[in-house]
């Protein structure tokens, strides 16, 4: 079967690396990294939860959040997770064109989300909530800003992966690279699932 031949070729390109667990080094590393990121975002989220109601100056959360807007943003990011999975399955089927298509869509959705964040930030600043205005302000921008930077880095990963696939310069297992970018991307999505509920939907 052509599939098996390609599959075997993929493994051959691994230099026949065997591992004690039978699992990929890179995938183990990525999951470990994501496990540690739980503690990073947990700290930022906890800081926000502690300080969300401390508004010495400037607007209070209830006065400033635009739930309908953020809901749309959240939906966009959630859908980008779907398109990311479709990119991964395409890569596993060795369908380069489909892979790049879904990677593109994911990147566009991700960039849209970041654009939405930028719009939200600039609106808030105009409405009087700056980074230094209050504890609420500092905590909010730090938490969502960190998340936004993670999404942006993810978009760069997606675009870079596409570029490297196009130039046929992937040094390892192509499907695995897309899978690992996918794991990172989904993690960024699940952090937002938590942020959306705790920060936006639960009133301070």
């Amino acid at each position: 079967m052509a599939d098996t031949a390609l599959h075997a070729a993929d493994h051959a390109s691994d230099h026949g690396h065997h591992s004690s667990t039978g699992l990929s080094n890179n995938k183990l590393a990525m999951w470990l990294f994501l496990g540690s990121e739980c503690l990073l975002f947990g700290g930022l989220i906890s800081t926000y939860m502690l300080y969300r109601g401390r508004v010495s100056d400037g607007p209070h959360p209830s006065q400033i959040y635009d739930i309908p807007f953020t809901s749309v943003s959240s939906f966009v990011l959630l859908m980008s997770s779907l398109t990311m999975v479709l990119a991964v399955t395409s890569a596993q089927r060795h369908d380069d064109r489909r892979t790049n298509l879904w990677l593109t869509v994911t990147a566009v959705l991700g960039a849209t989300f970041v654009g939405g964040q930028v719009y939200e930030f600039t609106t808030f600043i105009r409405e009087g909530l700056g980074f230094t205005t209050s504890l609420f302000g500092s905590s909010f921008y730090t938490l969502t800003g960190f998340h936004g930077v993670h999404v942006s880095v993810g978009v760069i990963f997606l675009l870079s992966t596409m570029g490297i696939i196009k130039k046929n310069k992937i040094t390892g297992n192509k499907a695995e690279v897309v899978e690992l970018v996918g794991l990172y991307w989904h993690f960024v999505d699940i952090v937002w699932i938590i942020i959306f509920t705790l920060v936006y939907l639960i009133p301070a």
Partner: protein
Amino acid sequence: MSETTEHHDHGMSDAGYIKIALILAAITALEVSTYYVDFGPLFMPSLMIMMVVKFVMVVSYFMHLKFDSKIFSFLFYTGLALALFVYFAALATFKFFIA
């Protein structure tokens, strides 16, 4: 000498992933509805449950954790569990959970 034995043949079809995505979208809609509809005392518990369900679904299906080696689950969920433990404890000392 065993090679990396990842199998992607079990797991889900594209249609399956789309189904998961639709479920997630529906839950999200329900979450957003808490902004418009008064859930009364169910407000907090339902939001928390929905958040956790979405989280676990993305991790289990989109991130394929349900179908992969348990070692990955151990590495990730240990980090998550430690995060929950230390931050809950720290917030508790701030009397955060006392009304």
